[in-house]
C-alpha cells in the first residue's frame, strides 16, 4: 500500500513539476510578444509571436492551401516572405526548388513569427474562407453520381468565379479515422451566393464513400474555398468550346448558368461525354440553356451505347466529336474538365486544330 501511494505521489509530483516548468518556459522564453504581419504591402495584422506563420494566417481567417496540417510533409503552404522569416530551415529544403529559394518562397508551416514580417500571397486567397453549411438536397443523378446542395448559414455569402472549386471537410466516420479535405467544383451559379451545388461520383474513396453512404439531408458540413485558376474568361468575341465527361460537368454548368444569368450572348458548344444514356444527367437544365443563351449548342456523346438504348445521338468519346465538328480553332477558347487522360487527348486535338496554349483552360481531377 505504502509503495503504491509513494509511486503515485512521486510520478505525479515529478510530472507536475516538469509541466509547471514547461508552462512557465512557454510563457516566458517562448513568448515573443505581439508582432506585426504585413501582407501584400497593404494589409496589417497584429499576431502572436512564436507561432508558425501558417497558424497565424489561419487565425486571421486567411486560408493557405495545406494538406498535412502543418507537419511539413505536403509542401503546399508556400508563401513569399519578403522580410523577417530568418534563414531557410533544413525541414523546408526538400520542398523548394532553386527558383523558389531565390524568390524567397518559404513553407509557411515551418516559418515561425519571431519578428515583424512582410509577406506576399496571391490576392485571391483573401477571398478563401471556411463556411459551415447544411445539406439541403442529396439526390441521385445516376446510380453513381449524387447532387449535393449545401446551404450556407443565413446571411452568409460565398463569392466565386464560375469554374472554381471548394474543399469539403470529411470527418472521421465508421471505417475512416482521419479527417480529410477533398476538392469539388461548384456547379451552381455565382449569382447564387447562399448555396453551392456539387456533383459527387462514387469511387469508393474516403470522401465519396462518406457522401454516398453516410451523409444525410440536414447534416452540417464544413467547406472552405473558393480555389482554382480554372474559371470563365470574359472574351466575348471568342467562340467557346466546352468539354466535360462525368462529374466534370460541374464547373461547366456553373459557367453556363453564369452566362445565362447575365444574358451573355456568346457562341458556345458543349460536348458532354458519357458511357450510356443512363450516365447522362441534368439534360433538362442543359437544354434550357439553348433558349437562354442564343449561341448555345449541346452535343452529348456516348461511348458504350447498345441496341436496347435506342440512342439516336452521337457515338464515341468526346475526342471523336471534336474531330468531327471543329474545323479551325483560331479565335476560339476551350474549357475542359475531366480525367487527366481525357484532358491530355483533347488538348492534343485542340492544338492540332489551331487552339493556342493561352486559349485552352482545363481542370483535371
Amino acid at each position, binding site marked *: 500500500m505504502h509503495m503504491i501511494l509513494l*509511486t503515485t505521489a*512521486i510520478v505525479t509530483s*515529478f510530472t507536475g513539476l516538469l509541466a509547471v*516548468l*514547461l508552462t512557465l518556459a*512557454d510563457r516566458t*522564453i*517562448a513568448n515573443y510578444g505581439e508582432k506585426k504581419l504585413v501582407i501584400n504591402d497593404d494589409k496589417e495584422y497584429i499576431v502572436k509571436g512564436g507561432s508558425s506563420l501558417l497558424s497565424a494566417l489561419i487565425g486571421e481567417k486567411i486560408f493557405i492551401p495545406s494538406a498535412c496540417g502543418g507537419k511539413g510533409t505536403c509542401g503546399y503552404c508556400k508563401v513569399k516572405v519578403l522580410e523577417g522569416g530568418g534563414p531557410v530551415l533544413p525541414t523546408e529544403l526538400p520542398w523548394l526548388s532553386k527558383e523558389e529559394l531565390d524568390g524567397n518562397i518559404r513553407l509557411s508551416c515551418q516559418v515561425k513569427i519571431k519578428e515583424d514580417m512582410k509577406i506576399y500571397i496571391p490576392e485571391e486567397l483573401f477571398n478563401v474562407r471556411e463556411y459551415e453549411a447544411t445539406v439541403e438536397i442529396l439526390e441521385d443523378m445516376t446510380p453513381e453520381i449524387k447532387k449535393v446542395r449545401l446551404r450556407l448559414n443565413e446571411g452568409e455569402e460565398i463569392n466565386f468565379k464560375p469554374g472554381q472549386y471548394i474543399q469539403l471537410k470529411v470527418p472521421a466516420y465508421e471505417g475512416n479515422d482521419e479527417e480529410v479535405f477533398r476538392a469539388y467544383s461548384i456547379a451552381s451559379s455565382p449569382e447564387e451566393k447562399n448555396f453551392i451545388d456539387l456533383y459527387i461520383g462514387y469511387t469508393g474513396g474516403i470522401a465519396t464513400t462518406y457522401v454516398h453512404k453516410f451523409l444525410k439531408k440536414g447534416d452540417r458540413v464544413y467547406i472552405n474555398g473558393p480555389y482554382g485558376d480554372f474559371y470563365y474568361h470574359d472574351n466575348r468575341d471568342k467562340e467557346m468550346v466546352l468539354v466535360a465527361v462525368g462529374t466534370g460537368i460541374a464547373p461547366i454548368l456553373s459557367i453556363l448558368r453564369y452566362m445565362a444569368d447575365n444574358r451573355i450572348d456568346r457562341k458556345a458548344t458543349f460536348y458532354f461525354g458519357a458511357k450510356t444514356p443512363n450516365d447522362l444527367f441534368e439534360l433538362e437544365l442543359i437544354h434550357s440553356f439553348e433558349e437562354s443563351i442564343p449561341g448555345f449548342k449541346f452535343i452529348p456523346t456516348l461511348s458504350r451505347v447498345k441496341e436496347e438504348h435506342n440512342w439516336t445521338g452521337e457515338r464515341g468519346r468526346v475526342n471523336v466529336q471534336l474531330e468531327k465538328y471543329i474545323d479551325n480553332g483560331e479565335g476560339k477558347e476551350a474549357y475542359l474538365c475531366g480525367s487527366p487522360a481525357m484532358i491530355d487527348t483533347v488538348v492534343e486535338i485542340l492544338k492540332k486544330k489551331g487552339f493556342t496554349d493561352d486559349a485552352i483552360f482545363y481542370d483535371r481531377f
Partner: protein
Amino acid sequence: MMDINPTTIFLAAIFTNNMIFSYFLGMCSFISVSNEIPTSLGLGQAVTFVTTATAIINYIIYKYVLLPLHLEYLRFVVFIITIAAFVQLIEMVVERYFPSLYYSLGIFLPLITVNCIVFAVSLFMVIRNYTFLQSVAYAAGSGLGWTLAIVAMAGAKQRIKNNKLPKGLEGPGITLIITGLMALAFVGFSGIVQIQ
C-alpha cells in the same frame, strides 16, 4: 565497476561499445538523416549534447530521489519524462537566445527526443553502477560514437550516390548493409578494452 577509469569508458563508448555498431541503437535517425555530412554532423552534436545533459540530470534524480525511496523500478518512466521535458525546454531556449545555433542544430532537437541512445545511456549507466564521472564520460563517448557512425555513414552514402544499385537495395537497404560492414570493422576494436 567502480574501478574503471572514466577515460577508458569514454574511449570504449566511442569504439568498442559503439551504440550503433555494437548495440544497433538509435537507428531511426541514423538511417534517415545520414544523407549529407554537414547535417549528420549537426545531428550528432545535438545528440551528444542531449545525451550528456540528460545523463547528468537522470543520474542526479536516480541517486538522490529514486534510490533513497527504493523506487528503482520507476526509472523507465522517470527517465523518459525527463528526457522529453528537457529537450522541449532546451529547444525553446536555443530558439530564443541562440538563433544561429537553432538554425544549424536546434531544428534537430525534436528528432532527438525519440532517439533510443539518449534513453539507453541513462539506463545503462544505472544498470552498470557507474559513478558520476564515469556516467558523464560514458554519455559523452556514446554521443561522439554515434556522431562518428552517422558521419561515416553519410560519407559512404555520398560516395555511392551516383552508383547504380539493385532497385530493392536503394535507401534503407543499402544503409543497413553498409552498417553491417562497418560493424564488422568495429569488431576489430573489441579486444582493446572491456567495460562490462
